[in-house]
């Protein structure tokens, strides 16, 4: 491979395979959960992987993120966040094109150019300040726009909530984003790790909130994730689900 090994893409691919194997194993066990959703046929495996992620988060990721927050002032953390967001703006622009939105692709490219040059490699988000909005896109969203349904909900190791479609999208994105073009594998891994810490730091308050308002954290996260992705595929305005609407109407009538 010209770009050397890509441990992240391989880790992801491996985790998907492992997941599939685990699923095979789990399928023979009786489901312990009560109301199984058709969107989540792998619930027993997903819950197990969710517990694993939770343990990993408690033991390692969240403490590191808290340390990162304690050590680095908010202004510098914003630079880090902006840097990674800017790196993603280039693939986002490509996805806009793949999704048939040339204006947004052009604006995204313009954003990336402005922030990379005038914003010192992206650490300053000048474009947003100038009123050019960021529209983050990824392969999962592109596949969705092409008509591919999310498929079963899937909890990935480390990355957490996903779906079969979005998991494939994640692998494709990691094989093609800007970081994957860096020659040194140490730099590449270091940047990936910093990115994870950066993302987790910004989620520190949100995870506390979820604990406070969810009756079942797993279901809360799952049902939020699936809706959020469907909304993102359609840039905030997904087509209405007719069946579900009628279902709701029925329930509401019964309620009155």
């Amino acid at each position, binding site marked *: 491979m010209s770009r050397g090994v890509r441990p992240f893409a391989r880790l992801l691919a491996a985790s998907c395979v492992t997941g599939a194997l685990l699923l095979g194993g789990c399928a023979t066990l009786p489901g312990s959960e009560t*109301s199984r959703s058709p969107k989540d046929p792998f619930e027993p495996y997903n819950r197990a992987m969710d517990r694993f992620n939770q343990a990993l988060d408690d033991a390692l990721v969240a403490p590191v993120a808290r340390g990162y927050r304690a050590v680095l002032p908010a202004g510098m953390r914003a630079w880090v966040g902006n840097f990674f967001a800017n790196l993603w703006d280039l693939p986002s622009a490509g996805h806009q094109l793949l999704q048939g939105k040339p204006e947004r692709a052009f604006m995204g490219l313009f954003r990336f150019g402005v922030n990379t040059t005038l914003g010192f490699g992206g650490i300053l988000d000048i474009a947003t300040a100038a009123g050019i909005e960021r529209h983050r896109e990824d392969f999962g969203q592109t596949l969705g726009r092409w008509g591919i349904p999310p498929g079963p909900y899937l909890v990935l190791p480390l990355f957490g909530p996903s779906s079969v479609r979005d998991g494939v999208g994640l692998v494709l994105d990691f094989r093609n984003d800007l970081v994957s073009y860096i020659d040194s594998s140490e730099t590449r891994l270091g940047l990936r790790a910093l990115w994870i810490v950066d993302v987790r730091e910004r989620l520190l308050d949100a995870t*506390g*909130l979820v604990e406070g308002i969810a009756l079942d954290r797993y279901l809360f996260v799952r*049902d939020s994730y699936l809706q959020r*992705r469907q909304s993102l595929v359609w840039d905030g305005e997904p087509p209405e689900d007719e069946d579900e609407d009628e279902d709701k109407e029925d329930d509401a009538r019964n*309620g*009155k």
Partner: protein
Amino acid sequence: MKRFLAWLFGALLLVPAFGVAAAEAPDALIRRISNEMLDKIKADKDLRTGDFAKLSALADSTVMPHVDFQRMTALAVGRNWRAATPEQQKRLMEEFRVLLLRTYSGALSAVKDQSIRMKPMRAAPEDAEVIVRSEVIQPGRDALQLDYRLRKVGDAWKIYDVNVLGVWLVETYRNQFAQEVSSKGIDGLIKSLSEKNQAPDQPNKS
């Protein structure tokens, strides 16, 4: 005479239009309530630091008159709502209301220099159900999507679902409520909600 008749006819046509205009349009309603809430939160530090009694009073005076909360709760509880007694329904509504207020009270600490931007509404005049879309604009950060489902009840528009960042509130609680009811019954769901609501807040716990 012809012109007079034309004028009269025109005026008659306008009468029903005035009648419609008397009821506040759904997007105008959302704009008004959003700005009212935002202004009050900006002006009152207690609201931003989690003063629950104050938030509860503000919600009751500003938002709740425009919310069909029974419909909202019924939709979240789903098919089991019908099986609940009126007393159980009342308790479910009370606990669900507190849970939602707790949800929002946690987010209010971030209110600083935000503003509301309404998105164009796509609805026909005869529609009795609409989605109103808006965005919370935060300088230097990505906008937050905030949408509402409203239904016409008599002459007024009532909110019955809220969407934050693409996630509808009712749908998010549906499966959780159904799971509680199927394993512990309706009283079990009420108990779980009330325990959740009495648990101390866990700020910044991760």
